[in-house]
């Protein structure tokens, strides 16, 4: 990083920009009712964003140079299965982490 880099400019612009992104709809729309077709789409935000965010990290992790790796695949599978079956993020994390840490000891 060049010594005269204006770090504060980066922090300020990223901070303000990120806040505006997050505040956007809650701030502008507020308590006005959204039409039903919009609500119907918004019900699927979590399952439309997060699986896509995770997929490349699971399949091609940076830490292994981008090759699929057994303990990470198993951990992702365990977290997914536990999350679907128990409906609880806690057990999903426990199952995922547990598999990730125990896998090298077993296989």
């Amino acid at each position, binding site marked *: 990083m060049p010594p005269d880099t204006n770090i504060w400019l980066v922090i300020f612009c*990223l901070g303000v920009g990120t806040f505006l992104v*997050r*505040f956007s709809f809650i701030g502008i729309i507020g*308590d006005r009712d959204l039409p039903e077709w919009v609500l119907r789409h918004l019900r699927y935000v979590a*399952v439309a*964003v997060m699986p*896509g965010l995770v997929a490349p990290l699971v399949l091609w992790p940076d830490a292994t140079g981008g090759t699929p790796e057994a303990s990470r695949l198993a951990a992702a599978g365990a977290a997914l299965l536990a*999350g679907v079956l128990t409906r609880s993020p806690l057990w999903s994390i426990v199952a995922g982490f547990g598999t990730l840490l125990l896998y090298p000891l077993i296989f």
Partner: protein
Amino acid sequence: MSQVTRSYWQGVRTALPFLLVMGPFALLFGVLATEAGLTRVETTAFSVIVIAGAAQFVALQLLTESAPLAAVILTGLAVNLRMLFYSAALVPHLGDAPLWKRALAGYLLFDQTYGMAIQRFETLTGMTGTQKYAYFYGCATPLVIFWYGFTVVGAVAGNLIPEGYPLDFAVPITFIALFAPALRSLPHLGAAFVSVVATLALGWVPYNLGLIIAALIAMASGAALELWLTRRAEGGSDAA
């Protein structure tokens, strides 16, 4: 204990397992940022003002590569663009409140708080607006404390993460924990499937924008499936 206080503490409790990731992740940011040449004050301010893990790491990476500042800022913002969807999805739950409460919720809106809150709001009906806000702030409190705190620890103390702690994969596991419990119907499963396939297929799109396009397609798929199931159920009763 009032319903509102109870909602707050339920939020705190739900957030606790996520600290397992948040702490080390913030620590790593503190370490890498100071190694890249940021002062401790700049490093801490970064975490407090921007408060978005993935974007902070991406911006830091580009800064160390001496990328133009405009590129650093725009790429960081592109990474955060997905939060537009989170903001929209929370409007029916958090929209009806004074401006300062909505502004604070905007500042505290990231993957984990959104994921925990929406799970709760959609499965537990009959929560009042005040209870929803209490739950949301409850989820955010321990996460934010860890995010700030461990950034400072990393910036001051250096790397304390034990060798072999699979930090790279702790983050994906928490994301899975945030959406897996929501896979409760055919439209949800369909949207998740489309999200994965479309994001992988659009991996070549610059600035992480493939994820945004894929999210739009996946949302449309979920909504279309829901509509189709409803119409089929109605059509079935007409025919009978």
